[in-house]
């Protein structure tokens, strides 16, 4: 029951961040500006009509994305625990609970991004919004010189990812009641492998469509 409550709260936070971002960062205007460079006025009207018709979809998929993400992370953790022979009876919802708590860290990514563009970098483009990732290694690089397939893996090197990882470690540690470094090892191997596969998949897809 508590899992469902956390899941709903998390989804509401995501909704709020997206709503605030769209409103305060004038996303519509930025998108329109980008379209103006590529499309004729008639085409823009058609695209905007299409977007207005389907705008609810961008909100509707949020709960689904969160659900898929926590399920996949929980699956990685449960496989990790299974491989380490740590426990035979840990229910899957215990892993879901840990992954769900970790997800709250990612709320701050959206929030800090919003505050950054609202108060610090007030002159920005749509591309800036898409490529900026707070407290990430990619911010030290010249993004224009980075190949599209490298953007995501470089964005993933960030302090939020580290915080997320540590939340998982503490969660596993609390669940298995073992030594901290053993939990660290299990999480690194299980979640780490999952992350490597996920990054590889994104790179593979980016290379195939760009």
């Amino acid at each position: 029951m508590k899992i469902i409550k956390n899941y709903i709260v998390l989804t509401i936070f995501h909704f709020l961040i997206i709503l605030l971002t769209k409103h305060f960062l004038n996303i519509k205007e930025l998108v329109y500006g980008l379209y103006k460079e590529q499309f004729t006025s008639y085409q823009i009207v058609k695209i905007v009509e299409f977007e207005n018709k389907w705008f609810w979809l961008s909100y509707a998929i949020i709960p689904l994305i969160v659900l898929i993400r926590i399920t996949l992370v929980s699956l990685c953790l449960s496989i990790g625990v299974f491989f380490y022979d740590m426990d035979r009876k840990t229910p899957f919802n215990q892993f879901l609970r840990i992954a769900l708590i970790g997800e709250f860290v990612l709320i701050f990514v959206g929030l800090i991004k919003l505050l950054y563009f609202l108060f610090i970098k007030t002159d920005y483009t749509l591309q800036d919004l898409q490529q900026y990732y707070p407290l990430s290694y990619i911010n030290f690089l010249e993004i224009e010189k980075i190949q599209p397939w490298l953007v995501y893996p470089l964005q993933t090197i960030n302090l939020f990812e580290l915080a997320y990882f540590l939340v998982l470690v503490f969660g596993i540690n609390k669940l298995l009641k073992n030594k901290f470094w053993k939990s660290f090892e299990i999480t690194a191997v299980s979640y780490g492998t999952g992350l490597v596969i996920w990054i590889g998949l994104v790179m593979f897809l980016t290379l195939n469509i760009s």
Partner: protein
Amino acid sequence: MRHTLKITIGIFIIGIIAFLGYSIITNLNRKEKVAESIKTIPHFSFKTIEGEVFSQLEISKTKPKLFIYFNSSCDFCKAEAKQIQENSDQLNGVQLLFVSFEDKNEIKAFASQYGLLNKMNMVFLEDESMKFSEIFDAKSIPFMLLYSKENKLIKKFKGLTKIENVIMLL
């Protein structure tokens, strides 16, 4: 049982990582090769809608060239063709090479619909063996490549592009 399951999962995970790693490296190498080969107009051989062979030897030697990879059922390609039709005067000095993997009758109908048939500077080509996307690494349509009259690549355009952005570069 537990041991067998561990081995199966392990092999599966290693298999996925190996597959992704191999695909990424192969793809990168291929992209690098293509990027190098399309710096100048590479070798190609398609068929005109009249059924004649058209290769890089037949292209104009005095005009810039614009390759347009399209499909007659794609809405963005239709929009691109409409823009070309509306700006055909400004594109007079460019050889336009429309390429599609569709049947020549469909290509002809498309050209005719937008009043682009029988124009001196426009050639409609049938890519029977679907080689264009491989040769030029075209992953989407419309896809355009602008070459100078010396056959040097000026710019690639992925997706629908305002034709003014192409004209600007001439």
